[in-house]
């Protein structure tokens, strides 16, 4: 399968196989009117299989959200057909407004205006906990 090069845009590479659609939805890529290619289960020397998303436009990305969802992603920014910037993501220390706390005893369960906020407490096991009640985030 051949998918053409992009001249200006973003390539999200090394997405864990099977997660491309989730990332597509969380980043709201469906709302863009540029060309978008979603490649699933591509062969990868490093990962065996991987997903790739190509966006035919340079957009602002929330690296915090991306890092939380899939910290192995590489973000390549393409300008004038050449690689302008490459970012390797890492697990963010804090994630705000992305995950919801499921603990019924947490204050966020009754006060709707509070932004749900999680912090990384165990990087090895990728555990995030609610800053209010310390319940773990459920993926």
């Amino acid at each position, binding site marked *: 399968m051949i998918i053409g090069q992009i001249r200006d845009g973003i390539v999200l590479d090394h997405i864990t196989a099977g997660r491309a659609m989730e990332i597509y939805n969380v980043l709201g890529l469906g709302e863009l009117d540029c060309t978008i290619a979603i490649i699933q289960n591509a062969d990868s020397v490093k990962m065996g299989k991987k997903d790739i998303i190509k966006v035919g436009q340079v957009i602002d990305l929330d690296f915090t959200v991306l890092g939380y969802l899939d910290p192995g992603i590489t973000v390549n920014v393409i300008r004038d057909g050449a690689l302008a910037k490459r970012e390797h993501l890492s697990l963010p220390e804090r994630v705000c407004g992305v995950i919801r706390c499921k603990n019924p*005893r947490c*204050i966020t369960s009754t*006060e709707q*205006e509070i932004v749900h906020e999680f912090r990384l407490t165990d990087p090895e096991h990728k555990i995030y906990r609610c800053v*209010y*009640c310390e319940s773990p985030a459920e993926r």
Partner: protein
Amino acid sequence: MRSIIDVMELSVEEIEGLISTALDIIENPAKYSEACKGKKLATLFFEPSTRTRLSFEAAMLELGGSVLSVSSAAASSAAKGESVADTARVVENYADIIAMRHPKEGAPLVAARCAHVPVINAGDGGHCHPTQTLADLLTIRREKGSFEDLTIGLCGDLKFGRTVHSLLGAMSRYKGVRFVMISPEELEMPRYLIREVLEPNGIPYEEVRDLEAAMPALDILYMTRVQRERFFNEADYIRLKDSYILTPEKLKTAKPDLCVMHPLPRVNEISVAVDDDPRACYFKQVLNGKYMRMALILMLLEVTV
């Protein structure tokens, strides 16, 4: 301006400072009797509590300050649906410092993020109760002389008991500490605390079922209540509540300088016959709690004496 939501926000040095202040208050109460003159503490208690609220109020009064009090959610605007954030924004206009107890976990943090005065978490559901841990720490220091080289037995409800969770974290910062966790299988210490607190700090621990077998090795025995309100199922509560009851008979194999602690209120997990044993320290904890709350109020109001 600083608030205290979790005891782990306090460094070892700050805890030393609070203990030092508390010990000075014990030695020289008159020196502190007007330290907070003109300052007001608001105690916002949206959940039943006798001891903690009275302790905060006694602490402020002994510092020469005044107290404004809300003693139940039903008596406050919360009953009309006011948010915690709005309550904090209102009360900060009346008080210099707020002590809040709330059934919802994280409510005092919400208040602290909105208010422009210090907020002390006086207990938020099953989450944190930092001033109880400060009371525990002062008790350990006064009874054992040090935080190092202690074998600490935690007994009872280790799953829902917020006081043992906080004590575990606070004591894990000292050298030579080891834990013996004594509980029924259903109420074991949560795995995440072992993984995130004990293991990274290399703290030795064991989990056992038998209180009597564990007794001879202990320097501190921290008993907890199996709390009815933490259970979703009444049958589970009734089945487990009598699992571990401390009696004079069980204390026979204990060290002569064992320190028996309990955050109170007790139901029946420590027999009243133990109260006269010199190793019973749980009523001393109550008094130590007041001194540590005094020290904490002074610290947060940045009052120097």
